[in-house]
């Protein structure tokens, strides 16, 4: 018998019923809830007179449209306020644990889960949010679902699902100074395209992944969805185990030892067969910057904006032209010469402590360039914020002219007051550069925290090592 992939193992462990013609029924160990995609699910439960099957399997946190400025006065926007209060009310009514807006543990759901040990290896984890893939960095099968499925999981603790195919992306080599896992994942998406992973679960492997920190692994898995895959996963190793030890929701005592034994099995067998594989050497990888309105439209900082005439096919040619039009960029322009108006450091992609440290290492002793209208640093959670403040990172940012904010999704999707004005250009550490994503008419370039900080101090994209 051939060996099993990590995904095969996770899938098999959660099968409640095999597929009989249609989808299989799989068990869901954890559901994370937030204010935007849950209200209709709770309403559905109430209408059908159903209750959540296992309260302890859920954790809720408000993150998408909370303000990132002083929260003591509550939320100004009445519609956002209604949504956040609806989550509070639903959690109270049904008895679900919630970190509300004033809880020190509040933050972006995908930062909070791992940080609290709510995310554990071997679990199936869902959330009404496509970046649930993030949690796969801990060896969990984690993926985003729609609101109807949120309701389905609340009511049944199960999901109808179909097994995906297996893809392995092997990242080999040692990253150069100043490079981050964000550069790796942007490079991957540039190579396989935004639908390259559709229908697959992607396992990230290779020496560059083994050497990556847990935070860096989360950044990789976070953007698996931008490569078309609902889930990205990484095998469990000593780092995973060390990361989980002692977290508030991690197993403790005998359970921890028992769990670690099971977690150690969560690796692909050496003879496992993948349906698709890509091998990328990252040794010579340069800082990546997206130039279009899809994450696959990406180049290195030393490159120029490509010419749509050189696109591989007709569909892409039109896509590139439209993107350049929207982004107000000309083919042949040096990426390093593109000036930005705003800088956003944060989001579930790059709002963890290591990201803030990396950005601070560039900001230290420098000043935000005069052409930058706003440079925001938004920690991924209240605990990340506190940790950063304990390390003095907030002072470094503030002294350099950055704004230091309260945790939340913020300008990643601009549902709160943090947003781009029409025509403004932003260097962002988030994960989507779609039209209007950061505000109507706004132009987003996806980059690593180091590059975002470098763009803030230089006023334009630049090789961070040459500052």
């Amino acid at each position, binding site marked *: 018998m051939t060996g099993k992939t990590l995904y095969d193992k996770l899938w098999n462990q959660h099968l*409640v019923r095999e597929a009989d013609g249609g989808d299989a029924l799989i068990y869901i160990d954890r559901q994370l809830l937030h204010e935007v995609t849950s209200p209709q699910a709770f309403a559905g439960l109430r209408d059908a007179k159903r209750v959540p099957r296992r309260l302890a399997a859920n954790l809720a946190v408000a993150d*998408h449209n909370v303000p990132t400025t002083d929260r003591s006065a509550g939320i100004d926007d009445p519609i956002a306020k209604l949504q956040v209060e609806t989550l509070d009310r639903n959690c109270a009514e049904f008895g679900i644990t919630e970190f509300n807006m004033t809880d020190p543990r509040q933050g972006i759901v995908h930062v909070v889960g791992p940080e609290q040990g709510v995310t554990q290896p071997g679990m199936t984890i869902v959330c009404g949010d496509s970046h649930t893939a993030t949690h796969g960095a801990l060896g969990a099968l984690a993926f985003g679902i729609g609101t109807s499925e949120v309701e389905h999981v609340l009511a049944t603790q199960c999901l109808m699902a179909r097994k995906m195919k297996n893809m392995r992306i092997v990242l080999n080599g040692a990253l150069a100074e100043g490079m981050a896992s964000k550069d790796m994942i942007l490079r991957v998406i540039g190579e396989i395209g935004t639908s390259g992973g559709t229908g697959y679960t992607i396992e990230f492997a290779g020496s560059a992944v083994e050497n990556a920190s847990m935070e860096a692994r989360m950044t990789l898995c976070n953007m698996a969805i931008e490569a078309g895959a609902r889930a990205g996963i990484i095998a469990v190793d000593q780092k995973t185990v060390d990361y989980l030890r002692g977290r508030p929701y991690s197993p403790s005592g005998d359970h921890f030892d028992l769990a670690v034994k099971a977690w150690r099995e969560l690796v692909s067998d050496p003879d496992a067969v993948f349906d698709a594989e890509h091998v990328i050497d990252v040794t010579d990888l340069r800082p990546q910057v997206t130039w279009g309105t899809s994450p696959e439209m990406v180049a290195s900082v030393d490159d120029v904006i490509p010419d749509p005439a050189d696109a591989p096919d007709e569909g892409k040619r039109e896509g590139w032209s439209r993107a350049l039009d929207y982004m107000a960029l000309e083919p042949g322009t040096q990426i390093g010469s593109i000036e930005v108006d705003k800088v956003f450091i944060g989001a579930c992609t790059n709002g963890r402590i290591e990201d803030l440290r990396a950005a601070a290492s560039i900001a230290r002793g420098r000043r935000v360039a005069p052409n930058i209208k706003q440079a925001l640093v938004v920690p991924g959670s209240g605990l990340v914020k506190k940790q950063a403040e304990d390390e003095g990172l907030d002072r470094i940012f503030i002294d350099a002219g950055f704004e230091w904010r309260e945790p939340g999704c913020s300008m990643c999707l601009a549902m709160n007051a943090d947003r781009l004005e029409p025509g403004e250009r932003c260097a962002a550490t988030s994960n989507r550069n779609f039209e209007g*994503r950061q505000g109507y008419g706004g132009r987003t370039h996806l980059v690593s925290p180091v590059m975002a900080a470098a763009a803030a101090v230089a006023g334009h994209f630049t090789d961070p090592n040459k500052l």
Partner: protein
Amino acid sequence: MKKFIKYTGVVIPINRDNIDTDAIIPKQFLKSVDKSGFGDNLFDAWRYEDQGEPGADCSGRPLNKDFVLNRKPYRDGSFLLARENFGCGSSREHAVWALRDFGIRTVIAASFADIFHNNCFKNGVLPIALPLADIEWLFARDDEQGAFSMEIDLERQALTSEDGNVYRFEIDEFKKHCLLEGLDDIGLTLQHEPDISAYEARRAKEAPWLFPDLQL
């Protein structure tokens, strides 16, 4: 959920790859706590000249006259035609609610993003993937000869264009059955309650740390 019945309607062509759910329904409309009322804001940024706000009346807003949804007879269409990777990006089910509210019940594309594809079935919207060559042909048909209509027969798994071309499509038997009968997924799963309980009991022994709430 309503039963998916055979119907005929106009095809609305949007000749783009990677139409993301942010484009289908921009984020400001996600603040609603309801499942309906999104139809006026479907493709909001492409459809109107100004910036849309949730709850605002759309009847007086300046329209982008070139955008297909604002032109006759497309504005009354019920099929949407697109290229690769339709529905990529955010998991927001609001995208499907907006399509359904507008009156679109079938989306035809060369390929779909997984989460969007799933969300369609939960809301009685049928996503049909056709080979790129067929998609190209349909776009060309509209481009050269003007708007046309199609008939969808889910039972027979066939789309028929008004000039008589038939396109067969694949669909999972179970999903087809659920659409045709308008079945509620949760009700179906709850029929398997004994299996779920048996799984929990077995798994709680194997991996007790996952079930602190189910320990005796």
